C-alpha cells in the first residue's frame, strides 16, 4: 500500500497544473464565500445637503451647547455622503441614479431645536429603481436618524436632570451671560427651619411648618428625577441573549466555513479522481488480483486525499492566522476536527469515484454535489418554510459538510461540544466507505 501511495504522490507531482487547480480553486471559492459572509454590503452613496450656515450648527439647551454636526457624523458611519450645494442638486442626483438617496437638512433646523417647542425636520429622498437597495438605504437612514434623535433626547434629558438638581440643592446658574445664585429647596427648608424657631406658637408657625414639609417632600421626590428622565431618554433597552448556537463571531465563522469548503473540495475531488484514475489506467484489475485488497486500495486513496487536504487546510489556517486573531492554543483541536472532516469527505469522494468510474464524470459529480451541500448547510432557520428547513437539515445530515463545518467551528471558536460532530463524521465515513466498497464490485 505504501508503494501505491508513493506512486500516487509521484503522479500528483507530475501533474502540477492539476494540483494547482485542485488547491487554488477551493481556496479561492472558500475565501470568496467567507468574505461575502463576513462583510456587509458597501455603504450606499447618499447626497447630503446641509442648509445650516457654517458656524451655526450649534444650539444651546439649558446652558449646554449641542453641535448638530456631531449627530451627522453618526449618520456618515452608515452611508457614504456626497456633499452637494443645494436641495435641487440633491434631487437631481437621486433622479439620475448617481446616488441612492439624499438627506436635506433645512436652514432653520437649529432654530426649531433651540426653541424647544417644535421639532426639527429633515428631508430624505430615495431612488426606488432597485427595491432591494432602496430598502437598505431607507432602513439605514431611518435607523441612523432614530439614533441621532435618541442621542439628542439623552442630551436634553441630561440637561433637565441638571436643572432639577439645581432646584433641589441650589447653586450658581449661568443664563444669557449672567451668573444667578439659585437658592434651592434644600437651603429654603433650612432658612425656614431657622425662621420658625423665632416664631411664637400660633397659626403663622403652623403655616411655616406646612411650607417646610413641602420643601422636604419636594427634595425627596426630586432625588428620583434623574432615573425618571433617564428612562424617558431610553424607554426601551435591549438585552441580547443567545438561546441556540455558539457565540462565534461572523468573521470566525467565515474562517471555519472557508477551511471546511477547502477541505471538502480538495478531499472529495482528489479521492474521487485517484480512485477513478485506477480504472481509467486499467490498473484496477491488475491490482486487485492479489496485489492489493479492494478495501486496502480504498484506505490508501482515502488516506492520500485526507492527508493532502489536511495539509492545505492547516496551511490556510496558519495563513489566515497572520491576519485574523485565532486561538492558537486550540490548534490540536483544529487538526482533530480537520482529520475527521477530511476522512468523511474522503469516503464521500471514494463513493463518487467508485460509482462514476471515470475521472471526468467523478470530478463533475464532485463539483455538482459539493457546492449545493455547502449552501444547504448554510440555510438559516426561518429563511424557508419549517417543513422545507427540516428537509434541508435531513439532507445536510446525510453528507459530511454540515458536521465538518460544525466540528471546525467548535475547534476554532469553542462554540459547543466536539464529540457530536466527530461521531457524526465517523459514521458518515463508514457509510460512504461501505458504499464505495460496493461500487468497486462493478469497477473492473
Amino acid at each position: 500500500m505504501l508503494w501505491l501511495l508513493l506512486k500516487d504522490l509521484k503522479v500528483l507531482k507530475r501533474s502540477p497544473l492539476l494540483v494547482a487547480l485542485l488547491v487554488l480553486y477551493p481556496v479561492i471559492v472558500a475565501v470568496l464565500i467567507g468574505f461575502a459572509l463576513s462583510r456587509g454590503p458597501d455603504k450606499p452613496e447618499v447626497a447630503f445637503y446641509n442648509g445650516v450656515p457654517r458656524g451655526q450648527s450649534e444650539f444651546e439647551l439649558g446652558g449646554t451647547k449641542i453641535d448638530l454636526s456631531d449627530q451627522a457624523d453618526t449618520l456618515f458611519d452608515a452611508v457614504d455622503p456626497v456633499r452637494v450645494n443645494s436641495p435641487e442638486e440633491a434631487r437631481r442626483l437621486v433622479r439620475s441614479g448617481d446616488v441612492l438617496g439624499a438627506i436635506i437638512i433645512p436652514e432653520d433646523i437649529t432654530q426649531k431645536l433651540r426653541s424647544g417647542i417644535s421639532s426639527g425636520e429633515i428631508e430624505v429622498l430615495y431612488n426606488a429603481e432597485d427595491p432591494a437597495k432602496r430598502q437598505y438605504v431607507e432602513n439605514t437612514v431611518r435607523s441612523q436618524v432614530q439614533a441621532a434623535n435618541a442621542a439628542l433626547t439623552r442630551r436634553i434629558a441630561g440637561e433637565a436632570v441638571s436643572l432639577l438638581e439645581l432646584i433641589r440643592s441650589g447653586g450658581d446658574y449661568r443664563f444669557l451671560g449672567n451668573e444667578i445664585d439659585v437658592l434651592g429647596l434644600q437651603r429654603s427648608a433650612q432658612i425656614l427651619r431657622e425662621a420658625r424657631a423665632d416664631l411664637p406658637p400660633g397659626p403663622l408657625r403652623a403655616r411655616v411648618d406646612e411650607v417646610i414639609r413641602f420643601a422636604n417632600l419636594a427634595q425627596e421626590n426630586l432625588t428620583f428625577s434623574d432615573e425618571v428622565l433617564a428612562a424617558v431618554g431610553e424607554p426601551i433597552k435591549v438585552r441580547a441573549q443567545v438561546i441556540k448556537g455558539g457565540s462565534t463571531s461572523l468573521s470566525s465563522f467565515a474562517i471555519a466555513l472557508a477551511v471546511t469548503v477547502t477541505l471538502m473540495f480538495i478531499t472529495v475531488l482528489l479521492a474521487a479522481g485517484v480512485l477513478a484514475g485506477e480504472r481509467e489506467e486499467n490498473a484496477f484489475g491488475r491490482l486487485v488480483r492479489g496485489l492489493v485488497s479492494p478495501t486496502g486500495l480504498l484506505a490508501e486513496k482515502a488516506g492520500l486525499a485526507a492527508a493532502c487536504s489536511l495539509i492545505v487546510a492547516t496551511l490556510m489556517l496558519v495563513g489566515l492566522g497572520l491576519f485574523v486573531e485565532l486561538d492558537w492554543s486550540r490548534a490540536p483541536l483544529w487538526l482533530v476536527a480537520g482529520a475527521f472532516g477530511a476522512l468523511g469527505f474522503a469516503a464521500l469522494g471514494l463513493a463518487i469515484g467508485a460509482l462514476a468510474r471515470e475521472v471526468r464524470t467523478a470530478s463533475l459529480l464532485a463539483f455538482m454535489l459539493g457546492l449545493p451541500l455547502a449552501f444547504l448547510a448554510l440555510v438559516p432557520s426561518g429563511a424557508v418554510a419549517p417543513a422545507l428547513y427540516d428537509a434541508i437539515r435531513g439532507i445536510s445530515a446525510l453528507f459530511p459538510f454540515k458536521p465538518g463545518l460544525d466540528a471546525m467551528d467548535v475547534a476554532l471558536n469553542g462554540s459547543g461540544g466536539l464529540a457530536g460532530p466527530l461521531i457524526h463524521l465517523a459514521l458518515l465515513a463508514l457509510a460512504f466507505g461501505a458504499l464505495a466498497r460496493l461500487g468497486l464490485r462493478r469497477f473492473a
Partner: protein
Amino acid sequence: MVLAAEGLTKRFGTREALRSVSLEADRGELVAIIGPNGAGKTTLLSILAGLQRADAGRVSHAPEEVGWVPQQAAVYGKLTVRENLELFARLEKVGDPAATVERMLDLTGLGERADDQVGRLSSGNRQRVNIAVGLLGQPEVLLLDEPSAALDPRQRARLWEFILALAGQGTTVLYSTHDVQEAERHANRVVVLADGELLFSGSPGELESTVGEASAARDFESAFVSFLHQRGH
C-alpha cells in the same frame, strides 16, 4: 500440464457467457482462443486470471500464479517504464525488485526507453511494458487478452517475436485474438469458442481437417468460418 480448467460456467443475469468449458495447457505451449464476438473469450481469460469468479467449475491455479496482460495497457502513463516495473515488482513482492526490473528491460528491449513516461510511448512499446509487468512474477503461465489489437504490422511482428521467445523459454502462453491467421501462425493449439461453448480444441491443421475437403476452404480463415457454419454459428 501446467494449467487446467474444468467445467467453467459463467452467467450474466439470464445470459450464459460460458457453458461448462474445460481446457488444459502444457509447459511452453502457445494456445490461441478464437471465436466470434461475444463468444466468451475475454470472460474465459478473466476467470483464468482470477478477475472474475466462475459460477461453476474449477481452475487448477491461484490467480497470482499466472501472469495477466489485459487488452488495454494496465500501466501508469505518468510513471516511467522503470517506475512502472519497480512499482509492480514491489507490489508482487519479488525477491530483488531492481534486478528483476533490469531483467525485464533487457527482455523487452526497452532499456533505452526506461526513463521515458509510459504515456509518451508508442502503443506497441506500451504493450511491451504491459506484458513485462505481467511477467514480473516469473509466472509459468501468461494470459494475454488480444495482445496485438491496435498494433501496426511492424509492432505486431516484434510483439510475436517476443512472445514466441517466452514460449521457447518454457512459459505457457494463452491468448485471445480476432485475427484467425495470427492464431494459425503463432499457436500450437487453437481453442474455438462460440456463444460460450467450447467447439474445438486442437492444432490449426486439425481444425482444417475437421472441416473436410468438401468445404473447399482455401485457407485457415475460410476453414474456421466453415467450421462455425457447420456448427450452426
